[in-house]
Each structure stands twice: as C-alpha cells, then as structure tokens.
C-alpha cells in the first residue's frame, strides 16, 4: 500500500517531467507520441486514485477496525 501511495507521487512527478520536456521542445515527434501515451496512462491512473474507490484499501482499513 505504501508502494501504491508512492506510485501516485511518482506518477505526478513523472507527469511533471513530461510537461517540462514537452514545454521545452525537447521531444521529437516520435518520442512525443510515446510520451503522450505514457502521460495518458499516468493521468488515468491518478484520476482513478482520486475518484474511484479502491476495494483493496477499503479491505485493509476494515481489517484495521477488527
């Protein structure tokens, strides 16, 4: 679970990197496509974290109650 939380932070960090690289025109068209794909996956992952209830987290936290 800690790893997952870490992944969100990492995902945001990676997104920031991508934004910076795209903004500074560091990417050619080929890598642009790849970066865009990666960014879309990261964004999807992050959005899911924010808006979709995670059954696994719920389960772990319910164990906490016992």
């Amino acid at each position, binding site marked *: *679970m*800690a790893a997952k*939380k870490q992944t*969100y*932070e990492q995902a*945001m960090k990676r*997104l*920031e990197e*991508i*934004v910076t690289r*795209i*903004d500074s*025109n560091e*990417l050619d*068209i080929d890598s*642009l496509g790849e*970066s*865009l794909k990666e*960014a879309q996956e990261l*964004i999807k992952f*992050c*959005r899911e*974290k*924010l*808006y*979709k*209830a*995670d059954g696994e*987290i*719920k389960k*772990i*936290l319910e164990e*906490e*109650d016992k």
Partner: protein
Amino acid sequence: MDAHPLSLYELNALVKRSITSCMPDTYWLQAELSDVRSNYSGHCYLEFVQKEPRGNNLIAKARGTIWNNVYRLLKPYFEEETGQAFVAGIKVLVEVSVEFHELYGYSLTVLNIDPTYTLGDMARRRREILKQLDEEGVLTLNKELELPLLTQRIAVISSATAAGYGDFCNQLEHNPYGFVFYPRLFPAVMQGDRVEETIIAALDTINARRDDWDVVVIIRGGGATSDLSGFDTYDLAANCAQFPLPVITGIGHERDDTVLDSVSHTRVKTPTAAAEFLINHLRSTAETLEDYASSILYAVTTQMEREKTRLTRLVERIPMQTRMRLREERYRQERVIRQMEVNLQSRLMRESHRLELVEKQLGSLLQKKLTEENHRLRFLEQQIKAASPEHLLKRGYSITLKEGKAVTDASCLKGGDKLVTRFAKGEVESIVITDK
C-alpha cells in the same frame, strides 16, 4: 416546618438582598479567563476559573459580564498594554462587583482590569510548553512534514458520540468533486481528564500501522473553552509534534487555541473545516493533475500543429519542383516522341518513294535489259545462223572431205587421194593430181 414556605423567586431575591448588603464593595479578583464571548450588543460574557495548583481540574468557576460601556474601553486598553488578545486562557486581575439575579444566578460584573497582571497561568504554561518543545527541537517537526498529494486515508481521532466526527465524514462523503476518502475513527475522549491519555493511545495505534494512513485528523465539536485544557499538555504536544504523519487539528472554535493546535501540521477551527481542508488539498492535487493533462495536450497539439505546418510546407515545396521536373520530362518525352514520329513518317515516305522509284527504275531497266537481251539473242541467232555450215555452203563456200573428214590443211594430201567436195547442193568426187 415553616408555615410560610418561600417561592424560588423569594429565596433568590433573599440571596440577592443578602449578597448586595453583605458584599457592597468591589473586589480585585485574580482568576483565569475561559470562554470569552462578546455579542452583537457589545457586551462580553465570560467565565472565570481556578484550577488545582498542579493539574487541570477546576476548583472554582464563576460567570462574568463586562457591559459594553466598560468592555469597549477595557478590551483595547488591555490588549494595547499587554500585546495579548483578551481571550480565554489568560489569567487576569480584574475589579468586580458581585451580583446575583433571581433568574440567572451568581455572576461577577467586571468594572476594571489591571493589565500589568497580564498573562494568565494557562497562557504562561502554554508558552512554557512550547518553549520547552522548541528547545528540544521538536516544536515544528510536524509542520515540516510534507502533506502527501493524496490525503485520502484519514485516521480520525475523535469521540465516536460527538457530532464533530459525523459532520466531518458527512462533509467528506458529499464533497462536490467526487473524491474518494477513506476515513476511520480511532476513538478517544475529547474532554475532561482523559483527553491526553486517550489521544496518545490512539496516536500509538495509528503509528503501529502508519503506512496505512496518509494523515491524522484530531477533531472535536465545539464547547466551553474550559473543556480544552486537556489539549494543553506537554506529553500530547510532544507526541503530536513528533508524529510521523501530518496531524490536522480541528478541536474548537476560532477563539480557542491550544498547544496541540500550535504543534500540529495544520490547525483549523472545526471538524467541518478539517474536512474542507482535506477536500481542498485533494482538489489542488486534482487541479495539478488536470493542469498537467491540459498542458500536455496543449503542448502536444501545438507541436503536432507545428510539425504539420512544416510537413505541409515541405510537401508544397517538393512536389512543385517534382511537378515542374515531371512536366519538363513529359514535354521532353512528347517532343522526342513527336520528333520520332515525324522522323519515322518522313523516313517511311522516303523509303516508300525510294521503293516506288526503284520499282519504276526496275521496270524500265528490266524492259531495257529484256530488249537488249532480245536483241543480243537475235544477233546471236543471226550469227549462229551465219556461222552454220549450211549457211556458208549457201554463200558459196564448200567443204572438202577425205575419208569423211573435213580437210583443213592441204599438206595433209598427196596425189591420188580421193576427195569428196560438198556444196550447198550436192557433192562431187575428185582425185588429187599433184603433190605440193
């Protein structure tokens, strides 16, 4: 038994009369302020408390009033003199008159204040606690923690029965953005003597599985400030300051500020405000995410647009040259083809003329040749005819034969040879007379 029992009012009126007559003077009172409130009319209602010399248990408490005509002057005077807000938790020296009202009971009316006796025991103790934490280097530790981007798994320390926890969860659950939160309650006593002990126990439980949580929230519904004394202890403050997760406190209202508030990562007024804070934090996380998403989209679109323009420009340029070249080539080809056609045509015509000519020449030549040959043949025929022996004979020549053979040499003859002479018509025999 008294024949005339008193009504409550009569009794209270008696108490009032007694107090007024027995305590006609004003008194300088040394006490701690608690729960100081002023209302729209400008009157100030407060509580005076006294605690055990060591500990937080109250041993005396009295309601107090400062009428607006006094409070209006007293409050700014006091605050200016002391640099300290006129709030709960400070110890004051005030001049009071003792009042008793049949309905509202016992209270003290404040007439004057001595600002030199400024900071009360509570405030001084708080300062002392904070100073001690500062000297130990832990005062700002919790504040220095970075709030994780995702503050969804929330360990809530509160009283299970208090409205505060319900308000908090309700607020989270109905957040307008649709964020998911996972709050869990770690029950603790939120007023009275067991505050410190139970909150520390709850913190220990959370700490045992700290990786399961993003943030700790300590909340409590509003109440009299005197109830907040449990949040002003050194052990609780030290625990909170050094806690490995950010602690958010929402344990009172604006006028209440405890040591726990001072060391927590973030301090808000109410449980609802704590929920609001977490929702806003997640919203800013979400906004950052959406910012990233849109700037990536924008940057990618821009770059693609740029590349497309570049490509279009190239496409425009390359074919223009190619087209021109192709056109040239086509013209050249056409020219060549036309030339070839013309050449072929003229060649064909020439050949045809030649053929015709040859044909013509051939015809006349043949004719000529035939005529010539004819002439030759005829000539030859005549010659042959002229050369034939019959012809010669006819022309007067004769052939001399000896023994059937033509004689061409006279020396071959001798006298007496018998000769036959053939003429065109007939033959004669003769005999050689002389030799030669």
